[in-house]
């Protein structure tokens, strides 16, 4: 019976010694404040356990017993320091803890410790009880706190904190036996039971601060199903990018039991951060994206205590990064592999939201356009309808009718033009726009258009044609080319509200036929140049609000030019007018 008890006591001492050594090794490999506290708490326990064995063998000199008590109290202090690094300990808490721990040790040293076999005096016994009580009080509080704080954490962290709490509370239970009457605790059965119980404490504490890989896998199994569900949702659900990144980051942390994580978009924007301040994340992002970034390979992987995985997004290379905290496991290749699969899913869904966002934006543009176009059509409609009703009810004399007729016709032409633009744009999008190329002289086409538009231009906006003497042959769809030139000259007229001459120059340069239309109107602001040729990209300002148009003209014109191996370019200065140049290849 005694032999068994001895074996158990040595086994538990060895287990604690191992625990202490491992925690110190862990600290040396990954130095950090919290690891230092863990090493202090567990190392001191190991020391106490070792001293206990030594004194059992060689007897205990008084100083060794004193040192033992001090180490014991320091282990409790280490745990309190660790607790403080998670949840701040108030100042009175520190005072109480230091007074209790230090006071009890001091008192114990003062009254002196009895040599091992001797029965302690009542005063000495009281001092020992005070030491144990102080230890228990200081240790129970953080243990309970950790158990409470573990709720809601990812499963790996939760189990680790629970294991740590369990280990310490079990230790407290063992220590509580000193309060029991000696005749109860001195029976071999109780001693063996206590030793056996003490033996499970070391593995529990070990699991708490450095769980082996197999254990982490076992812990994670409970989250497998919700994880799969989350990935499925991630792939199907169309959240916006930031929300998507946030939700997926949460799961990435759970997946590997990390403390801190972030998702970096392809354009360098921080999409999501969890477990650290934005400043910390920004610093990490800076290092990742910085110039001399050589610590992450093209495929990413383990980088120190972090896993960094590149996300090949369609707007550039983003990153998923998770970092182990002082209280989370060091990652292994298994974690890297799991996270890699997850990163692939994340990349796909982030790209998908980009497509969805683009579609939504286009839908908005289209509906805005529809609104604009229908309002644009209401104007001429009101005019035609109004005059027609006046003709019908006889309130318009025939001279007046003669006078307004050309204008009504012009408005109907305008409506027809708008409708044709809309139709052509729709055809362009469906690839149903059929071109009928023929060989013609560009000079003739431009002259015809300029003649047709002269009435619209009026005397304040003379259109000056400047044509070369020789033929400018092109092979293109003549009607479409005339549409383009009509658009350019019409725009020049519309955007010259105060008049001013309009120059239309046809010339040959570098094997191309060029048609340049220059006005001296309101011009185009630099910031509006980008939307000029976009579909529905009508530049509206206070000055242009009453100028009719759908915003399709320039988009359509450029597409028509490009369909025929040509191009349409613009040059403008706000307030000084614009030049639009159509370029088409010369016919052989």
């Amino acid at each position, binding site marked *: 019976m005694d032999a068994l008890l001895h074996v158990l006591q040595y086994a538990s001492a060895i287990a604690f010694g191992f625990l202490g050594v491992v925690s110190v090794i862990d600290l040396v490999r990954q130095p950090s404040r919290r690891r230092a506290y863990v090493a202090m708490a567990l190392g001191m326990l190991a020391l106490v356990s070792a001293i206990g064995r030594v004194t059992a063998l060689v007897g205990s000199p008084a100083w060794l017993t004193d040192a033992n008590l001090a180490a014991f109290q320091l282990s409790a202090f280490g745990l309190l320091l660790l607790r403080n690094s998670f949840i701040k300990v108030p100042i009175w808490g520190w005072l109480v803890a230091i007074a209790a721990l230090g006071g009890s040790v001091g008192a114990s040293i003062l009254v002196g410790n009895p040599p091992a076999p001797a029965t302690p005096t009542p005063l000495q016994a009281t001092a020992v009880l005070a030491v144990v009580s102080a230890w228990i009080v200081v240790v129970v509080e953080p243990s309970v706190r950790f158990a409470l704080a573990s709720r809601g954490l990812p499963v790996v962290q939760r189990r680790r904190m629970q294991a740590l709490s369990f280990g310490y509370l079990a230790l407290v239970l063992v220590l509580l036996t000193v309060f029991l009457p000696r005749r109860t605790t001195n029976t071999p059965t109780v001693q063996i039971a206590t030793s056996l119980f003490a033996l499970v404490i070391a593995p529990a504490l070990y699991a708490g601060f450095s769980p082996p890989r197999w254990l982490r896998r076992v812990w994670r199994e409970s989250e497998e199903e919700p994880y799969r569900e989350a990935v499925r949702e991630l792939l199907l659900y169309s959240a916006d990018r930031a929300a998507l990144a946030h939700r997926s980051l949460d799961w990435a942390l759970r997946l590997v039991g990390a403390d801190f994580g972030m998702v970096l978009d392809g354009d360098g924007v921080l999409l999501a951060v969890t477990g650290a301040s934005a400043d910390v994340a920004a610093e990490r992002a800076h290092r990742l994206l910085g110039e001399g970034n050589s610590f992450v390979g093209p495929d990413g992987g383990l980088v120190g205590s972090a896993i960094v995985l590149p996300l090949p997004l369609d707007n550039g290379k983003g990153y998923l990064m998770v970092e182990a905290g002082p209280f989370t496991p060091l990652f292994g290749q298994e974690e890297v592999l799991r996270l890699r699969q997850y990163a692939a899913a994340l990349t796909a869904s982030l790209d998908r939201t980009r497509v969805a966002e683009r579609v939504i934006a286009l839908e908005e543009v289209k509906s805005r356009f529809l609104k604009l176009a229908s*309002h*644009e059509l*209401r*104007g001429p*409609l*009101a*005019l035609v*309808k*109004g*005059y027609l*009703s*006046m003709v019908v*009810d*006889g*309130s*318009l004399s025939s001279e*007046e009718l003669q006078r*307004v007729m050309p*204008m009504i016709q012009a*408005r109907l032409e305008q409506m027809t033009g708008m409708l044709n633009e809309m139709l052509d744009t729709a055809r362009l999008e469906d690839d149903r726009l059929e071109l009928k190329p023929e060989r013609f002289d560009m000079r003739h086409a431009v002259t015809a258009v300029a003649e047709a538009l002269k009435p619209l231009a009026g005397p304040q906006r003379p259109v000056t044609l400047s044509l070369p003497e020789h033929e400018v042959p092109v092979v293109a769809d003549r009607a479409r080319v005339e549409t383009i030139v009509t658009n350019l000259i019409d725009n020049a007229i519309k955007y010259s509200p105060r008049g001013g001459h309009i120059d239309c120059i046809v010339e040959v340069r570098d094997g191309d036929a060029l048609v340049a239309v220059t006005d001296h109107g309101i011009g185009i602001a630099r910031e509006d140049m980008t939307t000029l040729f976009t579909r529905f990209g009508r530049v509206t300002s*206070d*000055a*242009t*609000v*009453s100028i009719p148009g759908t915003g399709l003209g320039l988009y359509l014109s450029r597409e028509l030019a490009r369909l025929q191996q040509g191009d349409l370019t613009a040059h403008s200065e706000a307030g000084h007018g614009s030049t639009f140049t159509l370029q088409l290849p010369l016919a052989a």
Partner: protein
Amino acid sequence: MARRLRTATAMFPGVYHWGTLVLPRGGISLGRPATLGMPALAPDDRVGGGQAKGLRILMVEDDIALANMYALRLRRDGHDVTTVHDGESGLEHAIYGDYDLVFLDINLPRLDGISLLQQMRATEKGSDRPVVILSNYSEPPLLIRGEELGVRRYLVKSEVTPAQIAASVHDWSAS
């Protein structure tokens, strides 16, 4: 108290339908009972010019051709019509001029119709001047805004004829 109302455009059956609209108070049928577009109440063209006295009417409309058309019809009835083509001069006329009725477009260069109306209502002379909005836009928020600013009627250009407008100017200008 919210009242369920039909918007002005829905008054012309079959032409345009925005459905019903819940307005916070009052309605879009402003000031006077609706007479527009109802054949029984539309007076014969020659009656208007006869006995009724001519009104001073301001027409703020950037489409010059349209402004001329309405002016032509209203002048036939003996009204004195002034047309202006942008928001700023519209505001100037509306505040300092002496008009019995203002026709106001929404989409105007320099100053839009709603802002014009807002600024005009803030002045002493413009605070209760009868205004009829005549616009291509008829979105519910605009209707509500117009109603809040005390317009007599909100009309959509392509849905009323000059004769219908001419038939109702006396109703709208009456205080």
